[in-house]
């Protein structure tokens, strides 16, 4: 009877030891995740070339005093721009105005030059802003994907503020500003 009990204990002990061995094995695997984030981000880049100024030179036809019809300036290229997510590009511009002659111009004269600024390369339809227009429906354009690439800013369609019948007052400096804004559309 005593021997029988001892054997029973050994068997039970054997089963008890065997159970963890069934649950475990001679190899084990553990895993862990690695996570991180990248924020929605836009960078404006830099303007290529010597400076960021469109220099139009003399604005008027010196024989008539009217705005030249052949005004032009090489386009500016903005490099290194990117948005890490879908985005909008907006271009805004202010008319060129006489910087010294700030009074209301006399009859028959104007101290502003309107123009149209476009920013292309970012979207299929370039963003466009005409300074003489009251509503700027094309000034903001959207793209649905992240993007990096050059933005070309060009000026065109120069016109005398107030109408083509006006002449421009003399001034050493007419100045306006073009602003291109990239916005991440998170």
């Amino acid at each position, binding site marked *: 009877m005593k*021997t029988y009990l001892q054997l029973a204990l050994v068997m039970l002990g054997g089963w008890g030891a065997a159970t963890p061995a069934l649950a475990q094995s001679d190899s084990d695997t*553990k895993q862990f*995740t690695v*996570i991180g984030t990248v924020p*929605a*981000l836009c960078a404006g880049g830099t303007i290529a070339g010597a400076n960021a100024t469109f220099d139009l030179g003399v604005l008027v036809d010196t024989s008539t005093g009217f705005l030249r019809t052949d005004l032009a300036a090489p386009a500016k290229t903005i490099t290194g721009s990117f948005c*890490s997510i879908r985005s909008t590009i907006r271009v805004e511009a202010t008319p060129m105005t006489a910087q010294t002659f700030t009074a209301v111009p006399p009859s028959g004269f104007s101290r502003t030059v309107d123009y149209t600024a476009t920013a292309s390369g970012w979207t299929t339809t370039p963003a466009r802003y005409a300074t003489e227009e009251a509503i700027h429906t094309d000034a903001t354009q959207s793209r649905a994907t992240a993007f990096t690439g050059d933005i070309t800013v060009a000026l065109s369609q120069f016109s005398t503020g107030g109408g083509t019948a006006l002449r421009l007052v003399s001034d050493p400096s007419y100045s306006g500003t073009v602003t291109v804004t990239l916005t991440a559309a998170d």
Partner: protein
Amino acid sequence: MIRVRLLLTAGLLMSTSPAWAQQGDADTAEVAVNGNVAPLCVLGSPSPAAVDLGQMVATSGTRIGRIAVLPNHVVNLPGSFCNFAGSAIDISVSALIASDASTLQPGFARAVNYTASIDNWSSTTTSATSAATKEGGSPTATATGDTQPLPKIADLAATLSNFTVPSDLLLVAGSYQGMVVITLGPAAGGGS
């Protein structure tokens, strides 16, 4: 009278002797006690259970939008052991891939590669470095370490380092996720 008593006493002593002899011859048995220990490898639970790299790109300066210098991260697997000779560790590392699955645009990547290494199991460091493409293809790399010739218990430490982006491209925005899988078991061609 006294002599008789002594003799009787002696008789008592003699009578006890056969009793001892009889017990010594009576019975002897041996019962074998056998057991075995199964080969086991057990890894401790990873601590921390997940590694959060946080925000991974530079947000200013010349490297804006590109991966920042990220510090190493260590995950501990305390009390990991193999109770047999001839074990080896296996590391599988999967690159962090962006959750955004839209078409990848030129100039961008959606993968962050890194190295996972463990240096305290065998005599040499075991490390695996993912080599996902910019689109996130082939994100997983594996490595098997040298054989540990003895049963061993150790607080394993997995170090994550060397976070890079294919061609150092800009990273698309979004959340990223990767995974490290560590396996401890018999070495190929040896062990239990």
